[in-house]
Each structure stands twice: as C-alpha cells, then as structure tokens.
C-alpha cells in the first residue's frame, strides 16, 4: 500500500479539543506526522496584562478547565512571592487539598479517556462515575465542580466548614478502594494490557532529551516532580512519594497516574486531619513591586511554569505560560513514528494533552467598533473560500 495521508482533526472523535495531525502512514504504520495546534487561541496572555490582580485570577482559571487550580495557584504564588506576602497556613493547606483533588479528578478523567481511546467504554464510564465523587467533594469545598474560584492573591477565598470533613474522608475511603480496583484491572485485563504495553515507548534518555514533564517523564524513570524538587504551598510538610517506573510506555504512564491517585488521597487525608487553625487569607497590598518570577507548579499533566514580571502596578507586565502539554508535544511526535495507526489516539492521550492550555493566547478585540458575531452562512462561505485558496482548488 502506498503512503496515505490521514488527517486527524481538528474535528475528530478521538480528540476532545481541536488539534490537527497530518499523519503520513504506510498502510497501518506511521511514517511521519505534522502537527498544528492553532485552533484555540484566545489571547489570554495579552488579556492578562490589562487586568488587575483580582480580576486576572478568574481569567487564568479559564486557561484550562481541568487544571484551573494549577494555573491560579501558580500565578498567585508568583505574585505573593513578588509582594513578599506570607499566606496563612490554613490557606496553604486548603490550596493543597484542592490541588490534590484536582489531580485526582484529572487522573480519573484521563484514565477514562485512555480507556475510551481503546474502545473500553465500561472502564471509561466507571472512572467517570468515580470522578463524580471527587467533584462532589470539590463542590462542597468551593461551591463549584470545575473552575473552583477559590484562589486569590493572599490566600483562599473560602474556609472549609469543619462539619464537612468527616464526609469528605469517608468519600476518600471509597475512592481508595476504587483506585486499587483499577490498578488490579489494568494489570490483568487482557485487552488493556496488549493495547498499553510497549506502545508509545520513550526511553529514559529520550524522555530527558525531549524535555518531557509530569507522568510522561516519571513513567520513563525520571524522578522529576516540582512538589519535591521546588516545594511550594507547604508541600514539604505533606507525606507523599514520587511515583516513577521504568516502563516508558502508555502502560507505565497509566501506572504512574494510578499511583499518584493513591498519593493524592494520602496527602488530602493528612491535610484534612492536620488542618491548622486560623485565617485562610492575608490582605495583599494593591500593587506588586518590580520583580521577575519563574513560578513552577506540578500540575496533573506535569510541570507548569509561569514567567511573571511585575512593575510596581496592580497588574502584570508580562505573563508567559508554558504548559505541560507544550513540553510533552515533541516527545509525542517522536514516540509515534513506527507505531500503528490504531495507536495514535492512545499515545496522544497518554500525555493527557490539554490544548486549551497550550494554544491559549486569539485576541479579543474589545475595542473594535464592529461586532464579530457571524451568521452561520457567512462562516460557512468564509471557510469554503479559505480552504479553496489554501488548497489551490
């Protein structure tokens, strides 16, 4: 069979967000692939420069729906560092609780997506059912199921009611049992084993060379976790181990994520049982002095880094967001070559790509006089014309 170009995306059932792969395949085997992620650009970095510290936090929360707490925590801790502000311990502990709950719901979501990519819909439904429990806890703590709106510069916006803690701990027990069940299932279920093992393999050297982060790196045996390496918000007080293994394939990444579910449960238990008393937030000054901060955070998908520059005003001069997905993309392109066409969804899913994070930056033209509401027909006509020109039809 000659080489065929299989376009995957921007709209494709395997992708939950718009991205375009042009996969050049020889029969069923991938020869090469080209990547385009320019479908979701929202101009957030530019918009962040024009908002004060109160109003920018909800905006950053919307960089990504899954790791919303990661972006806000990373940002506010950067700003707090610039201001030299000390956040009360109780506030820090609550940040950790929400962060770990977020990690749990992200990993459970990922597990479901990975199962769905290989057509194992029962596992997909089960994990998402259990994820509901995590979101119920988050709803109880913050009032929202996603985009928790709990961070602000200086601390957290809501205190946790002491009466809610026993209920949360009980739910964690159930989740712990479920985690063990998934681990057992993934180790022994025959179809998941043959679809995950040996697929999308990255050796330790490759993982280092291509700059992978998060579970992708840890599954290749790299002990890289910002929570340990550059502790923030009192992670140095939390009992947890960095989960790594040497498989290097999708199976290894799955094991890492399930292991992290366990560790997250441990952290949340510890944090809730040892929750310090006192205030949950400090009053921040209105402006931040001139400073340059590289703020790093271990998001569910890996190391997230924000480069923040403040300049004696109540807004940032520059915010540069480097998301874990962008760091991991290069490794995907590498690990897909030579794999089967059927493995694209699962290998791509294995880094847990978050495209809304990665290509976050179209410009919202607020100042423009004309409205940008398009009718369906206009949009359709434009699309047809554009692609005619592009493809030279």
């Amino acid at each position, binding site marked *: 069979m000659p080489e065929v170009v299989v376009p995957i995306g921007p709209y494709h059932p395997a992708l939950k967000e718009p991205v375009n792969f042009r996969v050049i395949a020889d029969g069923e085997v991938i020869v090469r692939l080209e990547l385009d992620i320019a479908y979701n650009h929202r101009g957030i970095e530019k918009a962040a420069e024009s908002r004060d510290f109160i109003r920018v*936090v909800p905006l950053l929360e919307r960089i990504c729906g899954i790791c919303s707490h990661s972006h806000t925590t990373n940002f506010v801790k950067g700003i707090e560092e610039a201001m030299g502000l000390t956040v009360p311990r109780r506030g820090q502990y609550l940040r950790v609780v929400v962060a770990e709950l977020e990690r749990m719901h992200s990993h459970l979501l990922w597990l479901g997506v990975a199962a769905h990519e290989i057509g194992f819909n029962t596992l997909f439904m089960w994990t998402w059912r259990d994820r509901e429990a995590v979101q119920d806890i988050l709803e*109880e703590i*913050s009032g929202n199921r996603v985009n928790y*709106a709990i961070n602000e510069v200086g601390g957290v916006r*809501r205190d946790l009611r002491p009466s809610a803690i026993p209920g949360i701990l009980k739910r964690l027990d159930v989740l712990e049992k479920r985690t063990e069940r998934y681990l057992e*299932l993934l*180790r*022994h279920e025959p179809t998941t084993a043959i679809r995950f093992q040996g697929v999308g393999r990255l050796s330790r050297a490759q993982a280092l060379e291509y700059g992978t982060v998060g579970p992708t790196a840890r599954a290749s045996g790299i002990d890289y976790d910002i929570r340990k390496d550059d502790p923030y918000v009192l992670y140095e007080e939390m009992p947890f181990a960095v989960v790594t293994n040497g498989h290097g394939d999708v199976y290894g990444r799955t094991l890492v994520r399930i292991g992290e579910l366990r560790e997250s449960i441990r952290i949340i238990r510890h944090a809730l049982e040892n929750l310090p008393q006192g205030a949950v937030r400090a009053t921040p000054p209105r402006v931040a002095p001139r400073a340059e901060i590289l703020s790093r955070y271990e998001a569910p998908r890996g190391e997230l880094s924000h480069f923040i520059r403040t300049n004696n005003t109540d807004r940032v001069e520059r915010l540069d967001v480097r998301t874990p997905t962008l760091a991991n993309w290069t490794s995907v392109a590498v690990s897909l070559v030579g794999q089967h066409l059927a493995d694209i969804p699962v290998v791509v899913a294995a880094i847990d790509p978050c495209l809304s994070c990665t290509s976050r930056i179209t410009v919202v033209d607020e100042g423009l006089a004309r409205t940008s509401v398009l009718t369906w027909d206009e949009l359709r006509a434009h699309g047809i014309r554009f692609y005619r020109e592009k493809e030279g039809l």
Partner: protein
Amino acid sequence: MKRGRALTGFLGEVARNLRSKPATILYPYEKVPVPEGFRGRIAILDEKCIGCSKCAIVCPTECIEMVPGERAVEVKGGRKILRKRKPEVHLFACIRCGLCEQYCPTDPKAIYLTTEPSGASTDKGIIVR
C-alpha cells in the same frame, strides 16, 4: 492466579452493577442535589444596595452594569444617603465566581449567589435586576 482474581472481581462488579441502581439520573425529571455553599444563580437585594459600584469594578467578565436607580438607602451607622445607581447583571455572562458578593460592603449582601442552578435558556440577554 492474580489475573483470575482480578477478572472475577471485574465480572462481579459487572453483575453488581446489573442489579444496583444506576449512578446517573434522568436530569430534567430528577433534580441534582447541591451542597451547602453551592455557587448558583446570582441575585440582587435591591433595598440593601448602596450603589457603590464595587461589584461592577471587580467583576472579571464585566457583566455587572450600573444603571440609574435613585433611592434613599441606609448605610453603616444608620446614616441615610441617596444612592444614584444600582447594578444589573447579564445572567449568561456571569461566571458565578462570587467576587461581587465578596466585595459587597453591605450586610446582608446586596448582591449574592443563590444555591439555585442557573439553568439554560434560549434567550442570551436575560438580565437579573
């Protein structure tokens, strides 16, 4: 051996699920329970509002608009003033972050989030007064 146990565990769960109640609900007919402190639809308590515009300033989506609404109101300390404006919220631009409630100076809050879900509508321009 371990594999066998894992698979019987799996089949056991399948069998249990066949018997047990579904985890999903038939949404519009059954309501989703919400916990205490749920952030729902925004509401305005007009008689308490002193027209300070703080909510409109902190709102990240700028969905709160201050419109003319002259009225005599009591501020802290029992003093009476004449307020000039009152807030109006574009409901479907509101992201229910609760910053307006947090920064509202009155007691009880003149602008606050209820625990009632916002729901959906075909009318994008619903305004909460």
